[in-house]
């Protein structure tokens, strides 16, 4: 009986938004710049040039390592990874091999109620340099080295995923986290975040291993993925996926493709495939001739990294999105859905907190009686009733204004009501007959005439008063 279980791991690259490149002082922000205008002897791989590492890039790697609950290695170093390709100026990439900066972490995927659905293990996080960019022209390939040498963090997960929805959730949460830390724009379209899934599928044979307490859904769902069969001895790497939407498509297609092969009694080949966005399929890529022998060895031009515990401790994490969300719900009494939206973006949440902090002394002005002012501010931000481009003070003023009971020109109001009642006799009759809804129509007409200068409640009261006279 064939039941198939996908096994998916991710390799994610994140380009850091440091000011300088990883090993030289050229500008790291290459987007939209004229080709080969942000280069120097180091990132061009010229004779005699030497690398010196960027301290901030290392700190940010430790930061993301901590945010993903990794162990930060006290000793770390850079290594050379050799291969030939036109976008690789030195004929080797300076990367990290056996002593990366961070290892053995975890990151949780949560469901729509923000409950932990699954914990994904992070195998390692290391730091390396990006390559140049290749552009294909009519009769050749063109190379721009502005991107060569930009710092790149590589995050490798264990193959703990078994479906594409979880992968998408994971990537979205990871993106929020990375942006929260302020270390990268993590934009898949711009290429500041790239990912490659490794996908295999295995057939589940009837298993002796039963999950105890099947009825206890919570335990079942939070359990770390357990292997009760052997790992398949192939995996397919998929490249060229440029958005979260395509991630799901690509993975689903690939799972289906592999299952078909397995059903036919064959084993899918270990290979690298590309993803075609237009057709929504994966296709085999020309395989590199043989398994790459990268001939790693420790980078002799860069002394090793030794991190004192004090130093590691000094790199402090800001409040993370999940922590903030919990705080908004439990301490501020904000509705979960609203707190979720507010905490997706760090700037947004900081703005929100600045407002509620400042407005504390002016609550009386809000005329909200016993309502939660924090929730009200949240509403106004989320519903975009007041622009978040305004300064804190401007926002607060606008808010106070908005919540002020509106002062009406009573004389005008009576005049307008009279006019409306006169022109809408049928509605008045209907109301008198007992059709209470008719009054809403009358209220509406008066509001229209008053051009928002009257409050609906008050208008209705007045109309009722007058009609019942």
């Amino acid at each position, binding site marked *: 009986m064939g039941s198939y279980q996908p096994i998916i791991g991710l390799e994610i690259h994140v380009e850091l938004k440091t000011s300088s490149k990883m090993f030289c002082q050229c500008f790291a922000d290459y987007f939209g710049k004229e080709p080969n205008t942000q280069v120097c002897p180091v990132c061009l791989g010229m004779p005699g040039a030497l690398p010196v590492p960027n301290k901030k890039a290392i700190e940010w790697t430790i930061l993301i390592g901590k945010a993903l609950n990794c162990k930060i290695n006290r000793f770390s170093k850079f290594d050379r990874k050799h291969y030939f390709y036109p976008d690789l100026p*030195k*004929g080797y990439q300076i990367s990290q091999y056996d002593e990366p900066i961070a290892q053995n972490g975890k990151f949780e995927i949560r469901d729509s109620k923000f409950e932990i659905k699954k914990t994904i293990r992070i195998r390692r996080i290391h730091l390396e340099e990006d390559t140049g960019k290749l552009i294909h022209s009519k009769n050749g390939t063109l190379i721009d080295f502005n991107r060569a040498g930009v710092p790149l963090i590589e995050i490798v997960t264990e193959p703990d995923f078994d479906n594409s929805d979880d992968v998408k959730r994971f990537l979205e949460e990871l993106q929020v986290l990375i942006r929260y830390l302020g270390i990268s724009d993590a934009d898949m379209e711009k290429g500041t975040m790239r990912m490659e899934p490794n996908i295999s599928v295995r057939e589940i044979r009837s298993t002796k291993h039963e999950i105890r307490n099947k009825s206890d859904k919570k335990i079942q769902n939070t359990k770390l993925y357990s292997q009760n069969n052997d790992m398949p001895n192939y995996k397919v790497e998929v490249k060229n996926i440029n958005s979260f939407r395509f991630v799901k498509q690509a993975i689903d297609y690939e799972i289906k493709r592999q299952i078909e092969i397995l059903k036919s009694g064959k084993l899918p080949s270990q290979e690298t495939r590309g993803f075609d966005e237009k057709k929504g399929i994966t296709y085999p890529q020309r395989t590199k001739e043989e398994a790459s022998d990268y001939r790693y*060895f420790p980078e002799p031009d860069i002394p090793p990294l030794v991190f004192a515990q004090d130093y590691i401790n000094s790199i402090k994490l800001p409040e993370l999105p999940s922590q903030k969300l919990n705080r908004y719900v439990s301490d501020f009494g904000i509705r979960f859905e609203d707190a979720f939206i507010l905490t997706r973006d760090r700037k947004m949440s900081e703005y929100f907190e600045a407002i509620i902090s400042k407005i504390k002394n002016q609550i009386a002005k809000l005329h909200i009686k016993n309502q939660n002012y924090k929730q009200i501010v949240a509403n106004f931000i989320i519903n975009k009733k007041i622009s978040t481009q305004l300064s804190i003070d401007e926002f607060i003023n606008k808010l106070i204004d908005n919540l002020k009971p509106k002062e009406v020109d009573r004389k005008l109001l009576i005049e307008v009501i009279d006019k409306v009642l006169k022109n809408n006799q049928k509605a008045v009759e209907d109301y008198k007959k007992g059709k209470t809804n008719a009054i809403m129509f009358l209220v509406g007409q008066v509001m229209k005439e008053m051009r928002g200068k009257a409050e609906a409640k008050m208008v209705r009261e007045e109309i009722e008063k007058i009609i019942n006279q």
Partner: protein
Amino acid sequence: MLLGKSLVSIFKLLNDKKISSKEVIDYFLKRIEKYNQKLNAYLTVNKSYKFKKDDKLRVPIAIKDNFCTKNIKTTASSKVLENFIPPYESTVTKRLLDASFFILGKTNLDAWAHGSSTETSDFGPTKNPWDLSRSPGGSSGGSAAVVSSYLAPAAIGSETAGSIRQPSAWSGIIGLKPTYGRVSRYGLIAMASSLDCPGPLTLTTEDAAFILKIIAGKDKFDATTVEFEVPDYFSKIKEKKKFIIGITEEYLEGVDDEIKEAFYQLIKILEKMGHQIKKIKLLSPKYAISVYTVIQRAEVSSNLARYDGLRYGNDRTFFGSEAKRRIMLGAYVLSYGYYDAYYKKAQKVRTLIIEDFKKVFKEVDLILAPTTPIPALKLGEFEKYPFFGEIMDILAEPAAISGICAISFPFGLTKKNNLPIGLQLMGRWFEEENILNLTYQIEKETDFLGVIKNGIKNYPD
């Protein structure tokens, strides 16, 4: 008359306005015109000096052609870079230029600094000024020949394992290998990153001290340079110090009899001067050769990976056969399955060699030994020796592997062929002032048995 004047004395003459920069540079350019064709020591001569009226004082110096000199062709003696004009300056040459030097020209070397004879240059070998049928040594053969024949008052070379000391010994001049990390490698075309050391080749100890002070010191562009303060070598060499000098049998094995004789002669003199000679034991230098071979080949194959002709230079089909061989072996020792057996093992033996020196330097201040086992070989004889003759570096390699400083100086000529004999002093890490100090004492006491003076006599104006 300038002939044979040291760098420091030329500086004095210029400072005292007894001579002009133009005169000095013209003088050397004339000599180069006369002798370079015969010696093939310079690959590029810099005739670009513009004689402006209020120009600064400029002293000429020759630079080995593996240092990137801005807008002056730099080839590493390889056809891969035969027309390469660097758009940037190496730190060593920048510091020299800032200190009023003028780059007289770029000197010949074994291609990519791979070799001990300068015969693997893609632009022809350099001849030994003492005997044109012989090699001046290598890889800094061009720099050594230039100084030995006074085609420049001093030169800069680089050493990975003997490449400054060995040609200095064979050409009868002084060659200093500073401690690894003392002098910046930024702009030095990389050979073996963990071994390369830029250093001076000179006629006097003062000159070596003078140049070292200028080029040494931390460089923000080279992460392997140390922050230690640079001593005032120039004044330190004149301090009256007495040393405990170690000598060892291991470094006399297979050494030419006449060289041994010179060695013992110097020992007697040193004892008379009041220094203490002490017998020590060191690991056989043959292990250093293996360590060196593995590490150097691995790093070289990696450092030469960038030469693909795409951004600059010619493509990889332009590599000479020696370069190709080293690249292949480097790929081998790093390749899957062999890394542990070779590269890692070599790095471990390296640790042993370092510990060995640390132990010995607790008992002695300096170590005296011959620089090379034999004097200058005839051109073409190298092929008979393994590693294309690198075995000549056997006595130089332990210092290279451990990173300590060392200096070679001439001490007499062989009676057999009238060739210079070179002896060397090795000192503790970052104690260049000690080896310079004792060399200065020897110079003052013996004048190196007249070698340098007599060498230059063969090259009259």
